[in-house]
């Protein structure tokens, strides 16, 4: 029954007021003629209000005449009535149509490009590469063919091993995977020299193949040939081999860096200001003023308006500005020097060979003014400085010995 009622509501119904002396007879005749009535309420001695379907309402005058009742319309409801009402408001309908058309046509273009997955390659460079292939803001969406674009861009950017283009409505999400560039390995069948990749003093040589050109205690510059792959033997002549081995040398690293004696920290004051903005198809509009504070940190939040995964070209921006003050705390000279030296030595450890042995470090400092101190660290390592370089090319990229 409930469903029947719902169907009638969708199909349209009329709320009527019936007046007469024989209302029960009116109801009985209606049911006999298959006119469906519902929500009947008695309004008094000789009147009642009820709902009747549009179809039933058409034959109601006949019933009313027969039962000597008067029928008055109280309200008209339902979908057909609403449609009929809006039929007259042509411009309203036209407005809706224009709006939908506009949204639809604007949705045919790319309005936002997101690049995810890149760690080393800057997003700007990837965007520029994408732009060259036609993936740009304002591009017609259906002109982008993911498959061919993927191949095209991967071929052009050697650092990428994988690229995937997802079209999500007006948004294009480009997922990339960077290639781990492997060190070039020189095939043992090819001839090569061992060349110094850093300047240092030779400490120890462990040569498996090739002719030693240096001995322990020698000072070598970067690029000097340590072990030659070209062996000259008297009576036999010249032959070339694949030089191999380790050349351990003392290497020095030096760095001077200024450090502040005052520790500055930005402390939030608790005052915040939120700025809202909305961007339509990549063009942002901001409400209200931006950052009202002298010093602040900002947290940005973007919310894309999307149906499912389909981006509709509208993004809501929320910028929250947190006011901060800088708190200055003076620090002891010794602490600053120790921390600075530590920081510099960590940098050295990254620069040196992964298997380098740390020997010692000299830390000196010089106070420049009341707030600054210069820390100089000279660190000594013992590490393998040999690098294989192909003999024929000479300038070829070397590999770690």
């Amino acid at each position: 029954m409930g469903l029947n009622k719902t169907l009638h509501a969708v199909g349209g119904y009329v709320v009527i007021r019936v007046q007469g002396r024989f209302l029960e007879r009116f109801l009985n005749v209606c049911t006999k003629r298959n006119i469906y009535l519902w929500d009947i309420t008695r309004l008094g001695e000789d009147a009642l209000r009820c709902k009747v379907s549009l179809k039933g309402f058409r034959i109601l005058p006949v019933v009313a005449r027969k039962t000597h009742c008067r029928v008055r319309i109280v309200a008209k409801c339902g979908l057909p009535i609403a449609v009929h009402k809006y039929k007259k408001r042509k411009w309203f309908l036209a407005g809706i149509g224009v709006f939908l058309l506009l949204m639809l046509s604007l949705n045919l273009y790319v309005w936002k490009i997101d690049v995810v997955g890149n760690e080393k390659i800057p997003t700007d460079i990837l965007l520029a590469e994408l732009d060259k292939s036609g993936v740009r803001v304002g591009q017609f969406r259906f002109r982008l063919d993911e498959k061919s674009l993927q191949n095209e861009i991967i071929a052009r950017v050697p650092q990428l091993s994988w690229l995937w283009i997802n079209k999500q409505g007006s948004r294009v999400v480009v997922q990339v995977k960077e290639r781990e560039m492997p060190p070039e390995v020189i095939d043992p069948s090819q001839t090569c020299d061992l060349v110094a990749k850093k300047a240092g003093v030779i400490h120890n040589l462990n040569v498996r193949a090739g002719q030693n050109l240096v001995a322990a205690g020698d000072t070598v510059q970067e690029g000097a040939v340590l072990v030659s792959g070209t062996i000259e033997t008297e009576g036999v002549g010249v032959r070339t081999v694949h030089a191999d081995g380790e050349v351990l040398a003392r290497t020095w690293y030096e760095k001077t860096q200024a450090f502040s004696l005052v520790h500055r920290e930005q402390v939030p004051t608790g005052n915040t200001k939120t700025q809202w903005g909305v961007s339509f198809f990549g063009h942002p509009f901001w409400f209200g003023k931006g950052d009202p504070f002298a010093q602040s940190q900002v947290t940005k939040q973007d919310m894309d308006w999307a149906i499912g995964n389909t981006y509709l070209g509208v993004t809501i921006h929320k910028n929250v500005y947190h006011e901060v003050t800088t708190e200055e705390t003076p620090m002891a000279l010794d602490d600053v020097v120790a921390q600075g030296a530590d920081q510099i030595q960590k940098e050295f450890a990254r620069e040196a060979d992964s298997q380098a042995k740390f020997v010692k470090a000299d830390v000196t400092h010089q106070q420049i003014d009341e707030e600054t101190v210069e820390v100089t660290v000279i660190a000594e390592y013992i590490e393998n400085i040999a690098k294989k370089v192909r003999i024929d090319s000479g300038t070829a990229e070397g590999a770690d010995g």
Partner: protein
Amino acid sequence: MRKKDKTQKPTMKQKLGDLLELPADLLADVPHMTLNDNQEIYIENYKGIIEYDEHMVRLNSKGYTIRITGRGLAIYSITDEEIGIRGTILCIEFVA
């Protein structure tokens, strides 16, 4: 099984129903009522409205009249065979 009323002779239909052990309402065109709390009554197989106002509804049915008294009675749905009444129902009487 329905108890047989001594004053009423069982009809052929009822006899058949008893024989086949069918529920009574399936066969006979006797009124079938569903009552939800004291707020709603739904009657199938009624024959017509005799009287209706917000305190009382009298319905015609086969053999007798059903009189429903209550407060704020409204007919929420009505067709040829079924009628639904809402309101606070106080009494349902069968008047022969």
